[in-house]
Structures are given as structure tokens and as C-alpha cells.
């Protein structure tokens, strides 16, 4: 087997170490965990700054602006990009208390635009389209007739359309606050609750699935890095982490403080 490049082996050691430090939180909140947590936030911010600089300020702002000005220095349109840049700068006045109110103009611009574009699109995609798909003819027509109508396994079958309608209406009713949940209202609201619970159960199952997948992904890396070509990084670092935790625990106890 060809030897791995040094930086890959080094990388494996760093990655494994950080992973194990974070897992040390399972024992309890401790300095190793806090260290890697802050390291993570720091690296993320650093990475974002670098990428944002290159993408926004160079690629989207500076280069097109310079290009436009070079091509047509006398046309006002070439300087158009200075407008959003100055609105953006207004946002940063937040840090100067005396003129902080100027940032409101920028926020007003952004929030106004965002609210405006959202209204018709939300109505279209999340209200009208959803109503359209729920309101269906329940007449058993088309191929298959009655047996297809009653087929639970077919998501679009008539019986499922009825269940869907009951579900949507009863859950909407559960979140309806102008009527007391008594009499027929109670039946509807209880139906809504059971629909909600079934769906939450499904969400619960999917969330568990998701969390386990993440763990599997991390463990796969740890297994890879425990190999001989990486110098048994995982095994050695596991030992180091456990020993450091023990040392820390001992030191804290001796000081009589609480861990």
C-alpha cells in the first residue's frame, strides 16, 4: 500500500482528536469539549469571512463594477452596484450608536422586499395549491372502480382522500381558538389530536433515524482513521482523551470544586 501523504495523516489525527473531544461531553461538560466547541465556532466564522469576501465583495461587487466602469466610465448605469453597497453599509451603522438609526433604512428595505415577495408566493404555494390538492372528487371513477377506491396502499385512492380531508380539517380545527372544544367540537378536536400524534410519531421515527445516521457517519470516519496507515490515530487518541479526562477530574476533586 502506498504511504499516505503526511498532511492526510496529520489531518486524520486532528479530525479524530476533535471528534473524540466532542464525544467527551457524553461523560460530562468538560474543558476538552468546550475547547473544541469554541474552535468550531471560530473556524466556521473564519471560513465564512474568507468565502464571503471572495464571493460577495470580489465576485459579485468589485469585479462587475470595475468591468462596467472600464467599459463605459461615463454612463451612470455602470455605477448602479454602488447603490446596494451603500445600503449594505448603512446596516453596519449599528455599531455606531449615534447614527445607528440609519441601519433602520437598510432593514426597512430588506424586510419590506422580503415581506412583499413572500405574500403572493406563500398564498400560491402553501395555501391555494394545498387546498387544490385536498379538494378532490370522491366519486369512484376511473380505472379499478370500487376496489381501487378502497385501496389504502394507494396514496391517491378515494378512501385516502377522505382520510386526508378529515385529517386536514380536524387539525385545522384543533388550532382554531374562537370556539370551545365541547360537543361536536370536542370530537373534531380529539380527532385532530390523534392525527397530530400519529404524525409526530412519524416525525419522531424520522428524527431518530437521522440522528443515528449522523452517528454512523462519524463512526465510519473513526474506524477509517484507526487503521495502521493513519498510525492508529483513533485508538491512541481515545486513550489520550480518557486519560486527560481522568486527570481533569482528579485535579478538580483535589481542588474541592465542583466539576
Amino acid at each position, binding site marked *: 500500500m502506498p504511504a499516505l501523504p503526511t498532511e492526510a495523516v496529520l489531518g486524520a489525527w486532528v479530525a479524530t482528536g476533535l471528534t473524540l473531544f466532542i464525544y467527551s461531553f457524553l461523560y460530562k461538560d468538560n474543558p476538552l469539549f468546550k475547547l473544541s466547541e469554541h474552535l468550531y465556532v471560530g473556524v466556521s466564522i473564519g471560513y465564512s469571512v474568507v468565502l464571503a469576501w471572495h464571493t460577495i465583495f470580489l465576485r459579485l461587487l468589485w469585479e462587475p463594477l470595475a468591468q462596467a466602469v472600464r467599459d463605459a466610465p461615463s454612463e451612470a448605469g455602470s455605477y448602479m452596484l454602488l447603490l446596494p453597497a451603500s445600503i449594505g453599509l448603512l446596516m453596519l451603522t449599528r455599531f455606531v450608536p449615534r447614527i445607528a438609526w440609519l441601519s433602520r433604512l437598510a432593514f426597512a428595505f430588506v424586510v419590506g422586499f422580503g415581506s412583499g415577495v413572500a405574500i403572493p408566493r406563500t398564498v400560491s404555494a402553501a395555501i*391555494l395549491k394545498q387546498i387544490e390538492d385536498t379538494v378532490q372528487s370522491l366519486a369512484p371513477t376511473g380505472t379499478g372502480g370500487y376496489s381501487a377506491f378502497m385501496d389504502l396502499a394507494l396514496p391517491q385512492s378515494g378512501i385516502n382522500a377522505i382520510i386526508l380531508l378529515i385529517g386536514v380539517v380536524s387539525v385545522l380545527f384543533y388550532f382554531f381558538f374562537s370556539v370551545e372544544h365541547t360537543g361536536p367540537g370536542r370530537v373534531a378536536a380529539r380527532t385532530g389530536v390523534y392525527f397530530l400524534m400519529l404524525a409526530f410519531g412519524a416525525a419522531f421515527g424520522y428524527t431518530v433515524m437521522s440522528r443515528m445516521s449522523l452517528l454512523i457517519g462519524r463512526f465510519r470516519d473513526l474506524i477509517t482513521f484507526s487503521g495502521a496507515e493513519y498510525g492508529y490515530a483513533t485508538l491512541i487518541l481515545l486513550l489520550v482523551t480518557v486519560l486527560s479526562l481522568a486527570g481533569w477530574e482528579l485535579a478538580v476533586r483535589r481542588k474541592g470544586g465542583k466539576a
Partner: protein
Amino acid sequence: MMGLAVFLLLLLTGGEALALAPPEGFRILDTPNDAGKSLSLVWRASPGESKDRTVQVWIAGVRPPSDMGSDPVAAVAFQKVAEFPANTRYVKPGDFPWWARPAGKGDHYAKLASSPAFPIEDGRPYAVKLLVREGDQEVWSEVVQASARPDWFNTAQMNNVLFVLAFTGTLLATIAAARRNPHVYLRRIAGLDAVDEAIGRSTEMGRPVLYLTGSGSMSDVSTIAATVILGDVAKKVAQYGTTLQVPHRDPIVMAVCQEIVKESYSEAGRPDAFKEDANFFITDDQFSYTAAVDGIMLREKPAANFFMGSYFAESLLLTETGASTGAIQIAGTDSDHQLPFFVTTCDYTLIGEELYAAGAYLSREPVLVGTLRGQDLGKAFIMGVLVAGTALATIGGLAQTDIFAYALDLFKDFK
């Protein structure tokens, strides 16, 4: 009936014997509700259309009147821009709403968009004709003319506009009504009934009440609701004479909560019992905060834990520890991804909008109450539409009629 079948059979088998007829009712129009540079063709369906018969679209730009010859159409060169089987491009139900229908049901409708091969310009007239072919037979339609233009309003989305306007109007009306009378009827939220029980038990056991406001900032609706509910809880805590602990992650939320708790103690007639350090800041860091709160739960064993506001992954760690200390736990959150965990680990959970409703219910703040009421009316309307719409669609389906489309189309999404 029989005669028709025979006729159709003749048409299919002895097609060659029958002469091909030109398309009937052929017309051309500017494509409605678009950004221009496009024309639409409409013609009626005719019997005998099959995949063996094809339709070709030929188009020519008509020269402007200035250099027009004696016959503008004859003088220009037609170009073939599209070809498709004759049994395609029918108008299907649902393609257009009844108030903006360029062609009747069952007609053919074909859109011609500008393309590099044949650019269509706005404002310039174009002549179009169809060629119908089957086997070695060919027949031309008449030549029709139209010009394209961009439109200023998409009439197909009229229902969307109406919905937005009606909802806005309702909202303004309900907010105005709530300003006049903030005590409009709102149903009691079941989870709130448990608050008394939980605080009562804390008092009996002589243990503190723990209240968390979530991870949101003061601009989140859920945090606002959480602080309102805190006011209610604090008042009861003051009345019962037990202790309250509110650990925080956000200094601003903490400052607001301090004021709220202080006021609650005054309202309860126990300003002397108020302690400044009931609200305290731990850290803004998600997991360190969680570890610290878990520590409080294990050491001080509060008998009632409240989790209101928005939560992320920390919810599970918090409620699990709380459950293990045997506390009554009441949660309320709009973080739907955490709701399943709250429901299984807490005794009562305010789900999603219930949290906002509880906030409005307790605070009687006109904008909150009015918004809740407005949304309620909207929901009632939608529930009505769903039930009535399904009934109409079913009756329509059974009776094979489209008459209800006039109502149903209003609640479809058209482009």
C-alpha cells in the same frame, strides 16, 4: 350511437377515402397573461384526429405597412416552426380558470414562444397558418394574423389577489376590533390549566419552580409568548409563596423577564417577596447552557419545569433530566422538529400556535388578539372551502358536470 361508432370505424379504417378537412375555427391571439414575445393558436377539435395525422405550424413576419406590397401576406416567406400529432395540445380541465380562458374545453391550444430559430417581436404582426397532413394528403388552414404584446396583469391569478386582499381586510378589522375590546372570546388553552396544579405541587413539596424561555431573542413571537406566560406563572408563584428560577441565554430577554416578574409580584400584592436574582444569566452557548440547567435540575430538584419558547437539539437533554427528577413538566413551543420529544417527555405540551394563543389569551394585547382572531376567521373559511369544495367536486363527478368549476376554480393555483 351505433351510427357514430360505424362512422368512427369508417374514419379510422377508410381514412384515405375521406378528404382531409382544414382545421375549424382556427384563430390566433396574443398569449394572454404573459411577458410578451409569444402567440397562441386555437382551433377546434375534429373527429378522426390520431397520432398518424400531424399538424404543422407555419409562421411569417408581416412587413410593416411602410414597405408593404400589394399583398402583405403573400409577399413574405412562411417558415415551419412546429409539428405535432393532431391528437395532442387539447385544453384540459384545470389548465385555465373560467375567468381567463383563451379557448373552450376540448379545443386545441398551442403556444408559440420566441426562439432563436424564429424570434417573435412584440408589436409586430405575424401571419400564421396550419398544415394538416395524413398519409399523402395535405390541407392548409386559412391564414390568420396577430401581434404579441406583454401584459400588465396576470388575470389567471385574480383569485390570489382576492385572497390576499380579503385576508388583509379581515386582519385589519379584527385588530381594530381587538383594540376596542381586547376581551373577545378565545377558548382556554388546556395546558394552561395545569399551571396551577404544577405550582401548587411545588409549594406543597417546598421546591422551586424552574422556567425556561427558550433560545429565541426578543424579536421571536414564541419568546414574546414565553415571557407573557412567565408573567402569569410568576403571579401564581408570588401568591402561593414559592420560589421561581429563570436561567437565561440572552441578556435582553433576561432584562425583559426581570421587569415582568417584578410587576407580577406587585400585582399579586407581594412586592416584598420579589428577588432580583430569580432571573439569572448562564451563557449563550447552547450545550454549556444545557449542562448548567441540567445541573440545577439535579441539585435543586424543582417540582415544576416550564419550557416555553423555541428550542433546538437541547430540548431532549433538558426534558430528559427533568423527567428523571420526577418534576411536572409543561412545555410550549413552535419548534415543530422538537415537538415529538416534548410530547413524550412532558406532562402537558402547548403545540405550535397554541403557544401564541396562550400568549394572546393571557396578555390581551390587541395586535396579538386581533391577529389570532383574523387567522381564526381565515382558518374557518378554509375549513369551509375544503368541506364544501369536496362535496361539490364529488357531486360534479357523479353527475358528470363542470358547473361547479365556477366555485372550485377560485381555490386553485393558476400560473
